């Protein structure tokens, strides 16, 4: 199913619509307040884009430097070209160490490569420990947002899932639900053999990986089990601890308007002799899975992404259809670019078109990714590779023919405006458009009123003279 079908399904889902409305204000208002308080947002944004670009421009050297330092500190660095390779590496580590249970903190790369399925096939029980991810694991659903994965669920829906999973009386209050999940998950943290986390950035200078959370689950996952596996993308490398300090001022503010998350943990190597806590082994899996396809061209800028979710929070399309309509792990504007590149333009259907081009995402993006421009480039590629349906291509070709001939364009728009005004009837609204009934099914189109823009413009110029 393509975006268009999924989106119209979601637009008809009243429960989802209500849940999405509740979330929207909190994200957008929270960020706006944090940015206003900050004072030097644009300066820090520019610096953040610069430090990301610096590492991306020499990505191979930064990765090799990271690998050298991480290895020196006792971690084992693995490289995976594809999703399958990444899964095989982690499953292999589990097998070699007799792992029965793995506790996971949130990792979008692990969603991307379908790690849970691979581990389960290898006989490992996988427990998601981020509250949102835990809820979705119980519901057997993928995340619908990269920061707030269960944003599409109401508390009543969560209560229902908990009754089934925990076998306890139904709860009505969110704090009680949170405590019940805490208690259910505590035992898993203490009994897991393997902890799996992502890494928001990896730091070349020190060979460090890191987690950014509010719940503290990533700290359990990276501290308690005897094996810690980090799975992350090759584009996450940055140079220094100072670069991290810059980026982390932007990330939680952009995501939910927080000045800082409750926990930031830099993890460098496994535990030292005599230490009471920490894993005996630390493995880091660096995953490509399509990222190198973005390098060296205009799309390279997309790799600056720090996965804050601001672009989707500010997107009017996302706000209405939610994350599942996008069909893969990355929703919203960033997903409309990453999905076609990672899974192939021919498999991504309407995604580059799932935008109104209002430009809000580019304004919100903390690392200044020109998201609408990149989407436009993908649309062009779709057109050139004849991946759009023929009526649409014909229509665009016809429009192009007319638009480059001013006299013809003026004539056609004059006639078109009159016909549309006539179709609008007495209420000035067009209820059905022949051939475009998909568009008018859920909304009316306001009919053009009076003259065309060009007629009015000519008239004004005439009056002035």
């Amino acid at each position: 199913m393509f975006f268009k079908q999924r989106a119209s399904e979601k637009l008809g889902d009243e429960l989802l619509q209500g849940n999405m409305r509740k979330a929207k204000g909190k994200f957008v208002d929270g960020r706006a307040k944090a940015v206003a308080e900050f004072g030097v947002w644009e300066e820090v944004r520019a610096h953040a884009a610069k430090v990301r670009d610096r590492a991306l421009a020499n990505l191979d050297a930064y990765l090799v430097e990271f690998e050298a330092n991480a290895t020196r500190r006792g971690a084992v660095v693995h490289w995976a070209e594809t999703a399958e390779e990444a899964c095989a590496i982690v499953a292999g580590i589990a097998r070699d160490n007799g792992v029965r249970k793995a506790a996971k903190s949130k990792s979008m790369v692990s969603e991307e490569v379908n790690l849970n399925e691979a581990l389960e096939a290898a006989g490992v029980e996988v427990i998601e420990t981020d509250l949102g991810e835990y809820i979705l694991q119980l519901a057997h659903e993928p995340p619908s947002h990269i920061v707030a994965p269960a944003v599409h669920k109401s508390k009543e829906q969560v209560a229902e899932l908990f009754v089934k999973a925990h076998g306890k009386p139904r709860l009505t209050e969110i704090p009680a639900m949170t405590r019940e999940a805490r208690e259910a998950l505590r035992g898993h943290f203490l009994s897991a053999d393997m902890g799996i986390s992502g890494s928001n950035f990896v730091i070349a200078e020190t060979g460090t990986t890191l987690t950014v959370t509010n719940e503290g689950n990533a700290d359990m996952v990276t501290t308690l089990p005897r094996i810690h596996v980090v799975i992350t993308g090759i584009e996450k490398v940055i140079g220094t601890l100072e670069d991290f300090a810059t980026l982390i001022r932007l990330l939680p503010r952009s995501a939910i308007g927080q000045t800082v998350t409750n926990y930031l943990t830099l993890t460098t190597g496994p535990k030292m002799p005599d230490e009471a806590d920490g894993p005996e082994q630390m493995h880091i899996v660096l995953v490509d899975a399509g990222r190198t396809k973005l390098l060296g061209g205009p799309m390279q800028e997309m790799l600056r992404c720090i996965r804050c979710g601001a672009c989707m929070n500010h997107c009017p399309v996302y706000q209405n259809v939610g994350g599942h309509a996008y069909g893969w792990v990355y929703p919203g504007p960033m997903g409309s670019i990453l999905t076609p590149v990672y899974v192939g333009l021919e498999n991504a259907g309407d995604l580059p078109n799932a935008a109104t081009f209002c430009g809000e995402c580019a304004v919100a993006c903390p690392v200044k990714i020109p998201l609408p421009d990149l989407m436009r480039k993908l649309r062009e590629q779709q057109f050139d590779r004849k991946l759009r349906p023929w009526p649409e291509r014909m229509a665009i070709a016809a429009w192009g023919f007319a638009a480059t001939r001013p006299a013809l364009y003026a004539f056609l728009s004059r006639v078109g405006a009159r016909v549309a005004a006539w179709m609008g009837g007495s209420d000035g609204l067009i209820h059905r458009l022949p051939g475009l009934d998909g568009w008018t099914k859920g909304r009316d189109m306001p009919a053009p009123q009076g003259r065309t823009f060009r007629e009015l413009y000519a008239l004004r110029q005439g009056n002035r003279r």
Partner: protein
Amino acid sequence: MAARRGILARIRKAQGRDGEEPTAAELAAVREAIARHEVGPQPPFAHAPDRLAQFRKECDRLGTTHATVSSLAEVPAEVARYLAAGALAPAVAGWGEFAGLDWAGAGIGYRNRPADANDATGLTGCFCAIAETGTLLLLSSPAAPKLNALLPETHVCVVRAARILDTMEEAFALMRSEAGEPPRATFFVSGPSRTADIEQTIVIGAHGPYRVHAVIVP
């Protein structure tokens, strides 16, 4: 190793560099850029005239409670007061650094060891604190287990006023000069654990502590 070679070669090809691996000169250039440790622009409030006031303000915002005492010897009495006020049991699992204080005199059972799942309160020190964000920075070591700040429902942290710095960058510089490199766990704690995963409603106490209390000593 084939994957490593493939990825590095693809990166170089896409970015128009010859060969399959970064050259010695390229690596040297990266190390040089790193060694500059360039500090980016910082928000004005990160360098507040009254650093302690800024630290307290951010702690309030995050839900970290705090108290100031006039000497290290007064810490047990402050901890006893804090636990009693919250109707919490007068027992802590703490770092060895503070085991020599008169805990018995304050009516507190002090267990000098890493916390386990049954401890209600953990006591730690910190490497430094950061005023910009009201953050406590803990560096792991055999003498400073992270578990005491993570597993118990209450975390009490002793902060030396002279170790409150303005920014994270200053903390990193201090870490380089005193410890050389980051230890296994460089742990920034900013308030009690929380989640907003159900209906974006903030709930205090997710997987980590429900309460964080900073005791500021001279």
